[in-house]
Structure formats: structure tokens, C-alpha cells
């Protein structure tokens, strides 16, 4: 069969909503796009442990400490599922980690912002996890089977995290004047970066068309962003707080909220490595990797010794 025929069969399967599995034929670009996207997603989970891990030692109650520990641990678990999903496409986890550590692979820019107060644990859960979930719910139906299945598991845990984050803010919003101010301040700082999580505008997004055709994505960046804005405008009322956008207004004609212009200069600066914590995050990952090298080597050396001993016994 000619390559064009394979491509047609492939597209037919996608159009018929049949999942693509690891051993199926797929265009190189489909494989590459999925490796890039899934590994970026895995890296985001792992780097995402850092800003929240920052508050574990200072969580204000034992219950909050346990919840936060469990949450950050869940993220490590998500990282593992996703690395495994990406490995089915033929790139090893070592290779993916190497790309993260050298800065070749990206991760979600949101984690390059600092977590400055306890309220940030709430705002990250509510806004950052909230934005991530909209994307992830869509990805539960993505065309690559292992990715879609990993997302189904992840979504269940993420929606739990989002509720926990909202609950952190809810308690603060009903607390002392200082706690209320802390709550509003965190929302103010995390709102715009959360909107940026959906990526560039559709008119500027380079990968969008092909990804939609291959059903890797099923909604555009702008559609998801609008859905997020509409959702948050309602939820923030429960907190008695406000979103920091004077242009937020219900548009009766569109049946959506209009919102202000995102600071795209900031968006690109952070993507290019100049966010407030890009360097710290990457340094932390590199430090853990370098300092863990002797542990990984020892584990391998021991496994080898054990295997040899067993072989000797058999002989």
C-alpha cells in the first residue's frame, strides 16, 4: 500500500472515532505531536509539584497538610501515567526527562509563577486545576488511546483537587479581614496567568488545525478559555470576591462573558524562560536528578548483583 492509502485509512479511523493504539500505523507527525504533547503534560505534572510542595511544611493545620501532601503525590502519579503513555509512542522516559532538564522540552508556564501565601494553595487548586480540567476533560476523548485512558484516571483526581482548592478559598473568604485580603490577593495574581494556560489565541496558534483534524484536540484554545471565564465568573460570587478584570461583562448577544485583553508580552516572556520562577523550577528538577544519580546507579548495581547470584544458584 502507498503511504497515502495508510494516511487515508488512518484518517478514516479517526473520523469514525476509533482510538489509535500503539501498534497501529500512524503518520510521523501524529506520533511526534503526541510525544511532544504527552511528555509536556507529564513534565507539567512533575514541575507542578514544586509550587505547591513549597507550602507543605507550612500548611496551617494537620488536615490541610495531609490534603496537600496527598495532592502533590497525586501529581507525581499523574506524571508517571503520562510518561508511560508517551513511552508507548517510542520515546523512553530517560530521554523525555533529559529534554526537560536541558530545557528542550516545555512544561506548563503557569508553574513558573511563585506561590507566595497560603491562599495560593486555594487559588492554584481552583483556577489552575480548574483550567487544566477543562483541557483534560476534552483530552479524555483524544484520539490516541493510551493518552485518553490516562486522562480518564487523571480527571477524576483533578476535579477532587479543584474542589479542595475552592474549599481552601471558601474558608479564607469567611475568615478574618487578613484572610479575606489574602484570598483576594491570590485570585488577583493567579487569574491572568490561568487564562494564559489555554495558550495563544486561535488566530496565533500554529498547531491547532492539524490537531483538531486528528482529534488530538477537540476544542480550540479560545473556546476552552471562554468556557473557563464563564465558569469562574459564577464561582467567584460564592466566594464574595472579584476577578481582576474591569472589562468582564455579560454579552447577551454571544451568551458569554466578554473579558479584557491578556498581556501577551508577559505570556511569551514566560514561555521563553523569563517568568519569575523558570530558573528556580528547572534548577530544582536538575538538582533532584543530579543528587539522585548515585541512588539510581546503586539500585541498578544491586539488581545486577542479585540477578548474578540467582544465576549462580541455578548453575
Amino acid at each position, binding site marked *: 500500500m502507498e503511504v497515502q492509502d495508510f494516511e487515508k485509512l488512518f484518517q478514516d479511523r479517526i473520523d469514525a472515532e476509533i482510538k489509535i493504539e500503539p501498534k497501529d500505523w500512524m503518520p510521523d507527525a501524529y506520533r511526534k505531536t503526541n510525544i511532544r504533547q504527552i511528555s509536556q503534560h507529564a513534565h507539567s505534572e512533575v514541575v507542578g*509539584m514544586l509550587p505547591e510542595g513549597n507550602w507543605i511544611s507550612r500548611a496551617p493545620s494537620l488536615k490541610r497538610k495531609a490534603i496537600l501532601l496527598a495532592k502533590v*503525590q497525586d501529581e507525581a502519579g499523574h506524571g508517571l501515567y503520562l510518561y508511560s503513555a508517551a513511552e508507548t509512542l517510542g520515546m523512553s522516559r530517560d530521554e523525555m526527562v533529559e529534554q526537560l532538564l536541558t530545557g528542550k522540552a516545555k512544561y506548563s508556564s503557569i508553574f513558573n509563577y511563585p506561590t507566595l501565601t*497560603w491562599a495560593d494553595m486555594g487559588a492554584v487548586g481552583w483556577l489552575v486545576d480548574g483550567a487544566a480540567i477543562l483541557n483534560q476533560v476534552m483530552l479524555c476523548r483524544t484520539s490516541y488511546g493510551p493518552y485518553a485512558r490516562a486522562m480518564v484516571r487523571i480527571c477524576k483526581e483533578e476535579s477532587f483537587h479543584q474542589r479542595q482548592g475552592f474549599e481552601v478559598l471558601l474558608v479564607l473568604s469567611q*475568615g478574618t479581614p*487578613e484572610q479575606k485580603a489574602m484570598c483576594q490577593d491570590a485570585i488577583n495574581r493567579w487569574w491572568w496567568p490561568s487564562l494564559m494556560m489555554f495558550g495563544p489565541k486561535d488566530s496565533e496558534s500554529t498547531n491547532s488545525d492539524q490537531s483538531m483534524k486528528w482529534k488530538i484536540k477537540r476544542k480550540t484554545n479560545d473556546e476552552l478559555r471562554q468556557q473557563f471565564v464563564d465558569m469562574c465568573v459564577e464561582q467567584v460570587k460564592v466566594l464574595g470576591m472579584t476577578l481582576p478584570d474591569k472589562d468582564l461583562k455579560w454579552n447577551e448577544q454571544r451568551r458569554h462573558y466578554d473579558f479584557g485583553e491578556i498581556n501577551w508580552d508577559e505570556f511569551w516572556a514566560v514561555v521563553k524562560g523569563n517568568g519569575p520562577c523558570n530558573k528556580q523550577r528547572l534548577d530544582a528538577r536538575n538538582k*533532584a536528578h543530579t543528587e539522585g544519580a548515585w*541512588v539510581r*546507579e546503586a539500585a541498578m548495581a544491586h539488581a545486577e*548483583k542479585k540477578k548474578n547470584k540467582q544465576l549462580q544458584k541455578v548453575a
Partner: protein
Amino acid sequence: MLPNPNSKYPIPYILHLADSTLILSQRNSEWCGHGPILEQDIAITNISLDLIGQSRNFYRYAASLIGNDATEDSLAYLRTEREFKNLLITELPNGDWGQTILRQFFFSTYQFYLFQQMQNSNDGQLAAIAAKALKEVTYHVRWSSEWVVRLGDGTDESHQRMLHAIDELKSYTGEFFVPADYEKEIGLDINLIRQQWEEKIKAVFEEATLPYPEKTFTQTGGKTGIHTEHLGFILAEMQHLQRTYPGAAW
């Protein structure tokens, strides 16, 4: 051998159990996001979670005996350096992965034999906490002992690092077996725990090709609130929000 049926465990003893598990949980949680490999990052965080769960059970029980609006959080967040009764070994800095692992192995093995006795206590509440914890601790002992063997019998470097870890930690293990006043009347057979502990440690060390130092000095003080200089920093960090915003709910 079992706790005296007429004696209740005194509150300071329950606080000692709570403090040791909380402080070790706090230390282990420093690894979260920084472990040598993702699977082990998850494992050490899991242990941290188990330990904080145990500490909450002990604190709640202590709070119920203390009354006066005491809560798990008032006991964890509003007591001072001199009031904390945790074992010194739990507050030591993590050191490298080998040191963290070895501390966990020493501590979990102690907990294992301690809780084996405590689960038969006539104090139903403590017996229940110990029985539940024992399931977790059984896994902690297995996990940490496997790592001790892996690192002891791994590479030259890992072996050297384990020797260093033994050197750093061994003198803090004697405190397990030196009873504070509040421990003397509670009827646990501490000598038996010591004997079982030593047997287990020696067996694992042998497999790990590590020497067991018979004679080491014993550092004590944690059980009565005389700590290392490290504890003050741990509490300053851990208690920061409760101290900065007195009376606030979180």
C-alpha cells in the same frame, strides 16, 4: 509483658508518640518533589502521609484526654520547643537519600515492635491506633529495609554513603530504649523491643554488607523536651501561620 491492666497511658506519653510521628512526617515531606526518582518520591511521600495520619490519631486522643478545647492543631501548632517530646532522631536533617532511608528503617523497625505490644493494650483507643498503624509500619519496614540492602550492597559510593549514614544516626537510636519517667509505668517490655529491634537491624545490615556498630554513645533528651538545635527551626516553619494569625480558622 502486656501493659498493666490498671494503668492508663499518661498524656505525655501519647504526646511523645504524636510528636515523633509528626516531626518525622515533616522531615520526610521535604523530599516531596525532590526525590531521586519519581516512584520513590511517591513512596517517601506516602510514608509521610501515613505518619501524619498516625500523629493525628495520637493528638486527637491526647486532646480528648486533656479537654479544655485542646485539638489536634492546638497540640501540634501551639506547643513550644521545650514541650515537644519527639525522639531526637526524627528532627535531624534529612541528609542524603541514604540517611533518610536508614533513619526510616531504624524508626519504623522500632515502631513495628512497639506497636505489636501496644495493639494488645487494655487502652482500647491506643490499641486501635497501634493496630491500624501496624499495617502501615509493616510496609515502611519492608520498603526501607529493601533500600538499606540496595544501597549497602550497591556501588562503592552508595556503600560509603551508608557507612556515613550509620555514623550520623546510630547514636540517636539508643533513645528508643531509654524510658522517660512517663514511660516507666506503662507496662511495655522495652527490653524485648530492644532485643527484637537489634536482631532485625543486624539481619538487614548483614544482607546489606554493612557493619553494625555495637558500641555507640546514646544521645537522649527528646522525650523530655531537650532537643537538638534543629527542632526550633522545624517548629518556626511549621507553626508560622498559626502563630502569625492567632485564632484564625483554616
